[in-house]
């Protein structure tokens, strides 16, 4: 395992170096192609859509970005009436990528960037240029709970890790009481509610735990809830399943994409170690992403980001951001389809697109630096 990590870091560094050089090499023809291909080319500054576009975009994948995709689709098709966009949210990230690799999708939404295998496979589907990961959707993982009589709860990373690992089993545990000096905590047993299906939210959350408190959270991070000895947690299907079960019980605690929690009560999470507890806010997620995102590019124009949660220390940021990508071929076999998909992706990752996601889907806007990075990458799309 250790060996593998070292190797991974090595490849990562190498990939980054290559990507950086590739980026600088490409940037010149970026501008030329972006300028010549179509004058209304959407970018961060010019959010309007070419209304003469027609066609159908078939896509699918991550359900996290489903609401954002719906809002984007509405906004995009309102400006280009001839376009139809089908985003299949029931496929999940894995299904999305599989279908995209099989050539069924124009782009796929996924909560985790393409693996190196998939990245190589993409060259068979898309041709030599392969595919690229584009961050499109930023949100946060919310810790939700239901405990009668307690409407405000502060938790830090250690307590969260201990609760979800089954080491803290009652609500009046001293560790929780210490963080919530004012509240009167009952002795109700804690019921941990987690996802029973594979999920990008689980991946984000477990990655956060394993980075923020590696001593208590010794389990592997991934899309599936790990096998924890003596685990008493209750698994539920979908974010909605977790939210419903948490709300239906008493003494329950769970995690979910904050855009899907409805009126469930969120716990405040400590950011850094300074004793500051923050609620989720869109601005907080944006700030957190800016601080945590590490470049992990796998090739030219690829914008894979690795989140280092330990870097989120600023009091203005929310400690558990969640990122979702769209993956797309760099060179489309069908040029008109490529143009259409490029127009759509440019729109959704533009400033207006990100605002729409924030207003309508509970997402947080990507930071400006990332938006301009994306615009640069998308300009190479053919």
């Amino acid at each position: 395992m250790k060996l593998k990590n070292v190797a991974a870091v090595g490849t990562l560094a190498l990939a980054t170096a290559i990507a950086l050089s590739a980026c600088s090499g490409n940037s010149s023809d970026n501008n030329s192609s972006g300028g010549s291909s179509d004058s209304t080319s959407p970018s961060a500054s010019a959010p309007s859509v070419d209304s003469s576009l027609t066609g159908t975009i078939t896509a699918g994948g991550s359900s996290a970005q489903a609401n954002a995709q719906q809002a984007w689709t509405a906004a995009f098709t309102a400006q280009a009436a001839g376009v139809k966009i089908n985003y299949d949210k029931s496929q999940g990230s894995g299904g999305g990528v599989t279908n995209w690799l099989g050539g069924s999708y124009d782009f796929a939404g996924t909560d985790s960037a393409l693996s190196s295998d998939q990245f190589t496979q993409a060259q068979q589907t898309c041709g030599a240029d392969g595919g690229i990961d584009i961050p499109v959707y930023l949100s946060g993982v919310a810790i939700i709970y239901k405990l009668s009589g307690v409407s405000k709860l502060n938790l830090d990373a250690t307590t969260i890790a201990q609760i979800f690992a089954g080491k803290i089993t009652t609500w009046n545990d001293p560790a929780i009481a210490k963080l919530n000096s004012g509240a009167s905590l009952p002795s109700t047993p804690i019921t941990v509610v987690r996802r029973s299906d594979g999920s990008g939210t689980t991946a984000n959350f477990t990655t956060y735990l394993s980075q923020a408190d590696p001593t208590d959270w010794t389990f592997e991070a991934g899309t599936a809830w790990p096998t924890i000895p003596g685990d008493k947690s209750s698994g539920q299907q979908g974010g909605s399943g977790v939210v419903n079960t948490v709300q239906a019980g008493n003494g329950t605690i769970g995690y979910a994409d904050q855009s899907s929690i409805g009126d469930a009560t969120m716990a405040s999470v400590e950011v850094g170690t300074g004793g500051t507890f923050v609620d989720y806010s869109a601005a907080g997620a944006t700030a957190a992403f800016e601080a945590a995102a590490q470049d992990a590019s796998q090739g030219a124009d690829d914008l894979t980001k690795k989140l280092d949660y330990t870097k989120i220390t600023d009091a203005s940021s929310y400690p558990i951001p969640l990122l979702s990508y769209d993956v797309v071929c760099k060179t489309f076999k069908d040029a008109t389809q490529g143009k259409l998909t490029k127009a759509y992706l440019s729109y959704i990752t533009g400033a207006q697109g990100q605002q729409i996601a924030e207003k309508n889907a509970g997402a947080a806007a990507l930071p400006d630096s990332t938006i301009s990075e994306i615009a640069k990458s998308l300009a190479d799309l053919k």
Partner: protein
Amino acid sequence: MTATAIPNAPAPKRNVDNALTTGQLPRLFELYSLIAALAIGAGILALLGFNIVGWIVISAIVYLLIVGIVSGAVENRRKAVDRIVRGIVVLAFLLAIAPLLSTLIDVVSRGYKDAFDMAFVFKTGGTHFDPNTLKVTTTMGAWQAIIGTLEITGIATVISVPIGILTSIYLVEYGRPAHWMNRTVTFLVDVMTGIPSIVAGLFAFSLFTLIVGPKAFSGLSAAIALCVLMIPIVVRSSEEMLKLVSMDLREASYALGVTKFVTITRIVLPTAIAGLITGVMLAIARVIGETAPIFIAASFTSNYNANPVSGAMETLPVMAYTGYKFPGTDIQASYDSAWGAAFLLVILVVILNLIARLVARLFAPKGMR
């Protein structure tokens, strides 16, 4: 006296009660016992703390005990058993009808708001984008899902019902039970009932990918997936129904010189029609509610698409599933639309059922139920 009817029947070993001479309980005995049981149940629970489920359970047990003991003492053992079984059968019925009604009540009470809203039923869901405020407002609509459900299930039915019924005719009327083909088909139909629905979806999608290329999402491929699930149910149930057609009828027909084809189509099928239609409706009901194969094979869309040969389609169960699992920003509206879609689906099946019953009545021979 009855003993004379069977010459070789063994003589009764002991004096048995005669139904005509043993005592008889009053006609409304069972009603009285029920009232008594309910009272005793309430009494017991008054001591333990009252709850409605416990009351019903205890009363039921007490009722069976009263009926059994009293009838056993006053009448005879056979009558006691009969009364107990009658009690159990009614109880089974009540036991089952409770959850079934509860489901229906849930569906109706949560779904009627949307399902009775004409704008929901007859309009495709839509969005309105306001470029000034960047606000997107979503309106829910089920029309595309209704069309999708009807087309996909319709195609699946048109393909599977003839195949299924013809196969069962083969099994019952043509094939010999010992023949390898008969045995293989029976065996394969058994196996087909075990295909997980999601696998059927994958199979159909892979098949269509081979035929039409990667963008194979279509209502037709979903319909093929449903066929795989539907055929075994049709075969299984129609086989049973055809077997039940009395041999006398077939033989009477053959004796009159009627050909096999005409015997099957004019005698066997009409006699079994009620059962056949029940089987077909069961099969339709089973597949019309499928979600997994639909979103594998037909993808997902909230756009209107009436062309089953190309493009993503949505069905009502998929709408219900996605409405619950992936709610929009207005969670309550999504749940409402999910229940609305479910209610519409139930209404749709009721209508199909009524049509099917009408068809059955038209074709059934006179004098049948």
